[in-house]
């Protein structure tokens, strides 16, 4: 592929990335940002570990929605198979919740947004297959998230007063299946990639679509710029969100 053609291709992909958000946006959808920074260390030929910090926003980039810290270990079982495990400490800004009486008009309860902690554990198996310069990978991840109980403010419209409301501790198991394709373009420092990920509990709850590019600098610095669309099956609890993602990883 000629240099000019490659540049044209990259430009097209970036344009697609930048405009990918807007055609899919509906009035009911939200938009936000994901910014992450991390370090990755190869301990042995097969074993590596990493730490990551992440920030997310919602409400059309105006409201912080999550701050997360993550640690993970991965092990190359076979040249094409990787096993990994990790822990995430998540600080979530839980969105407000307003409920109505049976008539659908009168207010019942209002719980303002609040920050809460969650603990997440995951184990994954990732199989990869390379066809020339295109790498296909399939990752199956089991994820368990625990939300400790806590007491938050709730306004009871019936009583006309604020009351303490206990959010009970709860655990949730999710199976995440991700199919990713990554293209290593010769003599190009930008590698486009795309993935589709399905989140299932007892049924499909969420679909994630990612389109992005990654860029490596001196094999130590890795940058990512991507679009991530999160689409929910039950929109009464969650709103579809279109996110602009930026990530940096320092490898040593």
């Amino acid at each position, binding site marked *: 592929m000629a240099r000019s053609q490659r540049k044209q291709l990259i430009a097209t992909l970036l344009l697609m990335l930048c405009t990918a958000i807007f055609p899919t946006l509906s009035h009911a959808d939200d938009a936000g940002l994901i910014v992450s920074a991390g370090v990755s260390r190869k301990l042995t030929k097969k074993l590596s570990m990493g730490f990551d910090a992440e920030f997310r926003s919602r409400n059309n980039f105006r409201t*912080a929605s999550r701050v997360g810290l993550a640690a993970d270990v991965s092990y190359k079982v076979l040249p094409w198979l990787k096993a990994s495990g990790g822990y995430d400490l998540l600080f979530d800004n839980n969105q407000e919740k307003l409920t109505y009486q049976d008539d659908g008009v009168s*207010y019942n309860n209002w719980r303002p947004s609040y920050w809460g902690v969650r603990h997440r554990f995951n184990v994954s198996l990732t199989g990869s297959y390379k066809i020339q310069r295109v790498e296909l990978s399939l990752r199956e991840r089991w994820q368990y998230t625990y939300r400790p109980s806590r007491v938050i403010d709730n306004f009871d419209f019936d009583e*006309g007063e604020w009351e303490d409301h206990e959010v009970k501790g709860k655990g949730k198991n999710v199976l995440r299946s991700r199919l990713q394709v990554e293209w290593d373009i010769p003599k190009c420092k930008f590698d486009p990639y795309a993935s589709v990920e399905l989140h299932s509990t007892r049924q499909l709850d969420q679909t994630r679509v990612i389109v992005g590019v990654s860029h490596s600098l001196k094999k130590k610095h890795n940058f990512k710029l991507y679009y991530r669309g999160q689409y929910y099956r039950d929109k009464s609890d969650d709103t579809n969100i279109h996110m602009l993602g930026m990530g940096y990883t320092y490898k040593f």
Partner: protein
Amino acid sequence: MKQIIHYSLLLVVMSLALSSCVKDDTDMADIIASYQVEPANIELDFSALTEAPDQPVTDENDSAYNDYVENSPWNKVINIDFDGNNATVTGRVAGVTIQTSGAHVTVINMSGPVKFIVSGHTTDGSLKFYGDKRFQILLNGAEITNPKGAAINNQGSKSLYVVLADGTTNRLQDGSTYTDVDEEDQKAALFSEGQIIFSGKGHLATIAVGRGGIRSDDYIRIRPGVSIYVNSTALDGLRANDGIILDGGVINVETSGLGAKGVRSGGVMTVNGGRLIAVNNGNTREDTSDEGLADTTACAALYCDSLLVVTGGTLKLKATGDGGKGINGKHDAVINGGSTTVVATGTRKVKKPKGVKLDRNFSITGGYFYTYSRRSDPLDVAGNTDIATGYKTCDFGPKAIIIAY
């Protein structure tokens, strides 16, 4: 060039991150403030009331003429004095037969207007009247408890004038179980088939533990100067089938029976003066019909099957039980004056505890009207709501409504 790109990217990230400091909560401050409303305080009030002089109707053609005890001759007098398990009857009137069994007194009145002056104390006695002649009971410091039925039971259909002797305190109480007589009603501690007209400047306390407090199968009129307290843990407190006219007096009604009403009027209820406070602490009664269907009956401080008209006086009505309504009206309610304060603070597990519920129309042209419901509609009108102009306040909140002229 690379550095410029990296720094630009960092700047973009920082800008976006810093701009993420806005909360995305709905602005509920004003809405919440409108819900943080404490209800008007309603408590029983036995304090004296300054009232305009009671002016008896003197026009014989006036339909209310016969409601005034002053308009009948009371030269025929019989005294009944209770003393423990005995009753002493003095005075003889032709056409009046009196039988006593311990402190249970039965009067058959075939004469004209007769005045019975009742006094003394009994815990196992009663007064029962037969005869279709109007008559007067002057309660002159009487305390009568009948453990097996009504304390006073009038089977006649003519006017019963209950006069509370000035400065006296009187007390009537029924029993938890009634011994009924075939084809005779006894629906309350003070029961009358005919109309009851209260007058005088004394006090009457009626305690109901088996059935109602005060009940007429005709109508009840209460005149200025009277002080009445009704406490019913069983059925309705004060009830009349054909209407209630409150011209004055201090009336306190307290009820707590399942599905009971503090005040219940089957006919037109008119409040012209006085002060009526009804507090109902009862919950909704849940029954099963003969067909096996679930049936529920909610409590109300005031229940009116017909028109409710307030032209003066003070009405304070409070329901605190599940589904309890302040006013439950099956017809129109018209407020032309006076002060009407209604509060419902009950839960809504079975029924909705509305402040005022009307199956027809509501109109207000004067006076003061306040209604509050903690957990349901303060004012629920199935028909039209007509608020005359000229008000000083007309405030419709989610919990409370105030209209004042």
